[in-house]
Structure formats: C-alpha cells, structure tokens
C-alpha cells in the first residue's frame, strides 16, 4: 500500500509542474500587459511599475521565482484589486465555495446512490425506465440552465426562497446547492444503477440468496460495497465538476466565493488572480484524485498489485 501511494504521488508531481509551467508561460505570451490602459503611461512610470512587480527580470528567473513563491503558497499581488493579494482573495472566497461545494457533493452522492439502488432493484420495470429517463434529462440540463429556472420557479413565482446572495443561512444555500448537484445526482444514479445491476447478477449474490439470507441482508452485507466502487472512483471527477460548476453558480446567485473572483478576474484580465485560482483548484483536484485513488486501492486490493 505504501509502495503504491508513493508511486501515485510520483506521478502527480509532473502534472502539477505542467500545470504551473503552462499557466505561467501562457500568461506571459499573452498580448497586452496588466498595466495597459487607454492612456499610454510615461515610460518611467511603466518601468517603475514593472520593477515593483519584478516583471523586468529575465523570464526564466521570473518563472523560478514564481515556482518558489507557489511552493510557499504565495500567489503574489492581484493586478486588478491593487490593495489585495491573490492569497487574500482566495482565503476570503474559499470558506464560501467549500461550504457550497461540500453540501452539493453530499446531496449528489446521497440522492444519487439512493435513486440508483432503487432503480437497480426495479430493473426493467416502468419505474426504472422513468427514473433513468429523468436522470438522462438531469444530465442534459446544464446547471447554468437549471439555476435560473429554479430561481424563476422557487424565488420569483413561488417566493419560497431568496434568489441570491450569501449570509451563511440555510435558506440562501438551498437553491445554489441544488442547482449545483442536480446533474451530478443524475450521473451518480446512473453509475450506481449500472454497477448494482452487475453485482446483483454475480454468483456470490445468488449463493447468498440460495442460502436463504434475507434480501435486505444480501443487499447491505454483500451487494453494496462492490457496487459502490465505481461510484467512489467518480468522487474525483465529481469534485472537479463541482469546482467548475461553482464558477457559474456563484455568478448566478451572486455568491462571493472563489468562482466569482475567478470570472471577474477573467473578465478584468487580472492575470495573477486567474492563474492563482487555476493553480489553487488544480492542486486541489490533483490532491483529491490522489486521495480517491488511495481510497480505491484500499477498498479493491487488485489495483495495488496490478501496479
């Protein structure tokens, strides 16, 4: 297990390096600098500005300095919000984004697994077909379409819930969290149904039933664990999808999370902020994938030995 986890770690590091390197050089070859404005700055001021942000050194030195800074979790100053560092912006948005994302992830897996198992138990019945068709619709409706429709129905027409904003209260979390998790509930339900059906057809389940084991025992003690393996391997991509989705959801519901900063940074061409968020989320996703892989290897020993 230790061997495996080290091996996986070794393959995560080049990914991180690629991420940082590509992001860094992409920004540097971009046309237009962060200090461009309608009026051309006098050359002295421009030189001073560049000296302040250390943009006058050779590119390769800037690159290694940036690597060093990132190793210490320092993403530098924001180019747009002059008094803020990228770290401060991320630190300010992170608790909000993580709360929202965490709730959405829990919703997605609780409802997704529940619905998937239910459909698998009623395989090929009308209710199974209906559930899976609804799930397909759920997958096909992007969350940035679902979100305004939810607002239209539950905030504007019915007036049950607030249409946006963030104050840490449950009422304001419900709509964004549901919008964020809807496509994922559908996806998890489909995966769970597929793997559950496969497991239920395997011979060890038949044996358990033949022994006269009560059906709920069969399901809980034998079928559930192997059926959940593919669902667990979806945790990594799901987390990535939540982070991506939160970008639009935070914008729609005017939630002050990292995603809002990211979109605003992208529209303002705030290079350091955009790069900081990309790297921050990249590290997070790589880390999560790593943990999920370890979890998976722990649950399914075959993975460890295959190499």
């Amino acid at each position: 297990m230790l061997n495996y986890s080290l091996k996986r770690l070794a393959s995560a590091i080049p990914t991180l390096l690629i991420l940082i390197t590509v992001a860094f050089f992409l920004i540097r070859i971009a046309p237009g600098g962060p200090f461009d404005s309608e009026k051309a700055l006098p050359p002295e001021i421009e030189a001073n500005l560049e000296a302040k942000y250390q943009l006058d050194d050779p590119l390769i030195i800037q690159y290694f300095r940036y690597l060093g800074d990132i190793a210490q979790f320092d993403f530098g100053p924001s180019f747009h919000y002059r008094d803020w560092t990228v770290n401060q912006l991320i630190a300010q948005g992170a608790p909000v984004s993580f709360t929202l994302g965490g709730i959405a992830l829990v919703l997605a897996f609780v409802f997704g697994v529940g619905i998937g198992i239910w459909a698998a138990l009623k395989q090929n019945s009308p209710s199974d077909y209906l559930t899976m068709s609804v799930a397909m619709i759920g997958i096909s409706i992007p969350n940035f379409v679902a979100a305004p429709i939810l607002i239209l129905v539950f905030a504007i027409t019915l007036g049950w819930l607030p249409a946006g904003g963030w104050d840490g209260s449950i009422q304001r979390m419900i709509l964004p969290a549901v919008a964020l998790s809807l496509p994922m509930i559908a996806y998890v339900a489909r995966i769970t149904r597929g793997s559950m059906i496969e497991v239920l057809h395997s011979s060890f389940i038949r044996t358990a039933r033949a022994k006269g084991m009560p059906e709920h025992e069969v399901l809980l003690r034998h079928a559930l664990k192997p059926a959940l393996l593919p669902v667990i391997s979806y945790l990594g991509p799901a987390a990535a999808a939540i982070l991506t989705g939160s970008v639009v959801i935070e914008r729609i519901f005017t939630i002050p999370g990292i995603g809002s900063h990211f979109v605003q940074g992208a529209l303002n061409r705030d290079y350091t902020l955009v790069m900081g968020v990309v790297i921050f989320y990249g590290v997070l996703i790589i880390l999560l994938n790593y943990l999920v892989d370890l979890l998976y290897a722990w649950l399914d020993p075959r993975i460890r030995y295959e190499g």
Partner: protein
Amino acid sequence: MKGETTIDAFEQAMDKRRVKGRSLYVDAWHRLKRNKAAVAGAIILLFIMVLVTVGPMLNPWDHEIPDWDNYSTPPSLDTGHVMGTDALGRDLFERVMVGGRISLLVGVIATLVSLVIGVTYGAVAGYLGGRVDNWMMRAVDAIYALPFMFFVILLMVVFGRNIFLIFVAIGAVNWLDMARIVRGQTLSLKNKDFIEAARVSGATERQIIGRHIIPNLLGVVVVYVSLTIPQVILVESFLSFLGLGVQEPLTSWGALVNEGAQELETAPWSLLFPATFLAATLFAFNFLGDGLRDALDPRDR
C-alpha cells in the same frame, strides 16, 4: 498462371460470402433501430438541425436588427414574433436559430479537431508500443489530471474571445479520451487471433488494416464522437454564458441563456426557449450516443 486463377476464383468466392454475411455494422444498425430512445434522439436531432438550417430563411426578422415597436414582447402570432423578442427588440426565434447554428457548428468542428489529434496520437502510441507508448501515455495522464475547464478559460482570457480559438481550445483539450480509447483498441487489436489468422492466410498489411483494424476502430470512434459533441456544446455554452465565448453580433445558445437569465423576471421566455433547445439537443445526443454504444459494443450488454 494456373495458380493465379485458382486464387482469383477463391477471392471471388470469398467476395460472394462477404456479401451474404451480416457485417458488424448491419448488426449494429438493426440493434440501433430497435432502441426507441436512440431513434427518438436521432429524430429530435434531425428536426433541430433542419429547423436551425431552414428556420431563418422562412423568418422575416433579422437576428441583429431590432423591431422598434416590440421590446420584450411575449411570444405572439400577432406581432409575428413566435418566440417573442428580447430587451432590445430582436426576434428571439431568429436568435435561437442563429445561435443554434453556432452551437452545433462548434460542437461538430471542435469534435473533429479532437478526433484528428486523438486518433493520430492514440494510433501511433498503440502501434509503436513499448517505451514510446509508455511515455506518450504518461503525458496524456499528466494532462488528463489538469482542471480542464479552468484551462480553457485561461486560454480564452489570454488570447481574447475568438470563435476559432474556441474550436481549437476545446478540441485541443478534448482529444485525451480519444487518444486513450484508440490506443487501447489498437493495442488489443494488434495481438488478436483473427489478425494473426488473416496474416497467416496471406492477407496483405493493407487488407488487414482495411478489413480488420479500421472497421474495429470505427465503432468506438463513432460512439465517442456522438458522446463528445454534446460535451463540447456544453463547454461552449458554459463559456458563452460567462461572457467568454461567442461575442456579439454572433450568438449561441449559451449566450442566449445568459441574456435570458438576466431578464428572468420581465421576460422568462427569453430564457426558456434557448434553454429548451440546448437541453433537447444535449438530451438527444446523449440518448443517441448511449444507443450507439449499446449497438456497436455488444460486450457491454
């Protein structure tokens, strides 16, 4: 001389049998036709494509020029705006059709870009095998772990919002799956018994590739394409929704959903129509793709 004629006769006989046999694709076609969801998906897609192509020709309004008498009017036959107008008085039906052309076009072209890159990369890796393959696939793994959507956004920020860049950016990032699938398929095909058998019975390299390798690759490629197009349409809508994708005067379903979401309270129809078209298209592609996978890959059944 005599030897050649026997071979000719043999090949003719083989040709006859080839006509009689049910090929993989005839089989797959029959399976697909029996899948109601997939057929429904195909019909919906066909309908949307025809509508998007023909609709603007039959519609008197222009997608850029406002109707000065009708701002934010609901759908009505009296005004001639069957889907209503937006806040600037532009005909929504026309905009949804024009946006649909862009969305579908981006979907198809970006998928083709990723197809070309992915098939080439995957086939080379799978065919060469060994150390080259190992390194090529490691590179794919490394890139695969990157946060894809953030990368596309970064690309859009850096290089400006240009529609061709959208094609390239999405296509260039989306080829990884294709490369993996094609590589795996090539690797396993290379060592299959029926390839060996064909080789032993004197088939040339060209015949093997044409008769065995390509048809066997084609199935996965078709399935992959039908499942990638909706993904790409989704990415494009996502970008356009954020204002980073297609720019005015052009529009796409994502951009229209964004406009509609801002006029939610006063003009809900400007959200509902583009949203319905976008969702229906994704829905139809997903069902068709699922059906194709079931039809072409019987192992999954």
